[in-house]
């Protein structure tokens, strides 16, 4: 199974690794609709250390090209972490995240590029040898307070 490591490495690195390095896109223009807030509740964190690195996307193109609208670093408390975004226009959003266990701001990989830090997408979406697709990960954000739970495994 020699190719597998490369399949995994190539696909994941395109998706999740550069989260922290990506500058957020410019803040959206003031929304005409009432703004929304989003609380992301991360659960199932195996080791109580480091941070959850979170990237929020508002379009399929942004998801695909890895251009988040917001990023945040959430401190781990026990087996959970929480991230809050506010002032968002209602609409469809997706989340890529990973548990930065060693706190170096990067998704750790083994020498062949396979992620060795746990990661997760919104909706519990799972990719096959790569990041989950937008269609599986996108969820609806309504005006007012929203809450979305993500299990990091």
């Amino acid at each position: 199974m020699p190719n597998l490591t490369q399949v995994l490495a190539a696909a994941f690195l395109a998706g999740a690794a550069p989260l922290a390095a990506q500058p957020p896109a410019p803040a959206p223009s003031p929304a005409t609709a009432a703004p929304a807030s989003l609380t992301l509740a991360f659960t199932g964190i195996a080791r109580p250390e480091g941070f959850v690195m979170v990237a929020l996307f508002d379009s399929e193109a942004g998801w695909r090209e890895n251009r988040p609208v917001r990023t945040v670093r959430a401190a781990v408390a026990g087996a959970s972490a929480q991230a809050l975004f506010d002032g968002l226009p209602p609409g469809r959003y997706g989340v890529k995240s990973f548990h930065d266990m060693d706190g170096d701001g990067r998704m750790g990989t083994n020498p062949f590029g396979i992620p060795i830090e746990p990661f997760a997408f919104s909706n519990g979406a799972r990719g096959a040898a790569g990041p989950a697709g937008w269609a599986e990960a996108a969820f609806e954000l309504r005006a007012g307070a929203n809450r979305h739970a993500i299990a990091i495994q």
Partner: protein
Amino acid sequence: MTPTLDRRAFLAAGFAAAAAAIVTPEMALAGAAPPAWLLGVGDVEADLPEQAMRLVHGRAPAGFAGRLYRNGPAKFRRGGSAAGHWFDGDGLVRKFEVQGGRARLTARFVDTPKRRLEARLGAMVQPGFGTPPGPGARIANTEDVNAANTGVMMAGGELLALWEGGSPARLDPASLETRGFRTFRPDLRYMPFQAHPRDEPGGAVWNMGLSGAQAIAWKLNGDGSLARADVIELPRRSYFHDFTATARHLVIVLQPWINESFRLPLATGMLWRPELGTQVLVLDKDDLSRRRIFELPSFAFFHLGDAWEESDGTIRFDGAFEADPSFGQRAAAALLRGEHHRMPHPILTQVVLRPDGRAELLPAGVAAEFPSSDRRFSGLARRYTNHVTHYRDTPFPHAIARWDWQSGRETLFDFGDHQLVEEFLFAPRGGGEGNGWLIGTTLNLARNATELHLLDAERLAAGPVASWRAALPLPLTFHGTFAA
């Protein structure tokens, strides 16, 4: 094992050969009963609690004791779905324990994420060497798809179930219970660890992991801990399932079966490019940047024997070489459908790498697979190679043989057409290479049962000194290890 049974089987073979000459596999399949050898790639539904095997021939030599661990795929089909290749079934680890003249058998599936997921879904969905991903496949890392089905090794009191694309699984050597995967160092999690570790004189063990044009060279200490791990660059993207080693060198055979692209299943991205020839990469263990490349005509292979270096620097090793990789590409997949694609069998061949850069192939001229030898001589000059042979009219061999590279002669024992012979391993008795036993298993199609056999390595033609029969048939295994 009785002479009567063998003679009957021999006569039957004659008729089968005559029939095969006029009936193509396709014709034979249409409307015919499944071939008897299909039992070799059958499904086992549950773990096997420890049970006695029945002594059916001879008796164990006084004082002989040890455990033969074997691993091989034993679950290929769930619901209406099936693995697409012999290499992709779930690993069932078997322990054959001989003690006080008696033999006992325990078998337990490696409890992998793949097996758990597929049991829950009631379908084979995880991709592999020749199996595409199915609905609900989960592929986040190499542990998700690890079939843990290829080999085993002892490492620091633990039994490791080996695959080649990911970490080894840790097993309790007594109960065979799975304890998770072995990560040798946190930053090396999910790295490939192949199923053919090579002993170094002195106790260290080397292994490889492959990823395109890169490999990781693992060195373990005698206690199973990691001594070092180095990423090495390969001159080409050859697929290899096995490497070999002398006391001072790693020897990597780069067949022209090339990982051209990354696709699932993996074999679909591998192309046969015979015009490239076969290369042999030799690395100094003490300085992996010191490397030599030798050129050979093209051949394909899965398995190699231990290598050694002579006083003038000549390196020799052997392997089971075939003209092309049709077996791995197609025939091994067709087996699961009960189809036998007839093709030339691999030939035992010695490779000679001269200090002046020349390389040559010395074919022994005998069909051979699953080479094994006396591990006390791993990496050192040696004379004998044990291997399976005599394929005849089934896809699987019927005999175990010992080739003598010094005399160019072979001794063997043919178990008969009704017996499918698996890899046999050497168990030492006294001093000197080859002074010992060959221990291994067969699948007895006539008796519908797996058997354990012990032969005197120096008197193979005499047949087993002891044979034990299990109460049931288990599918064929790939590789094992013997622990005294």
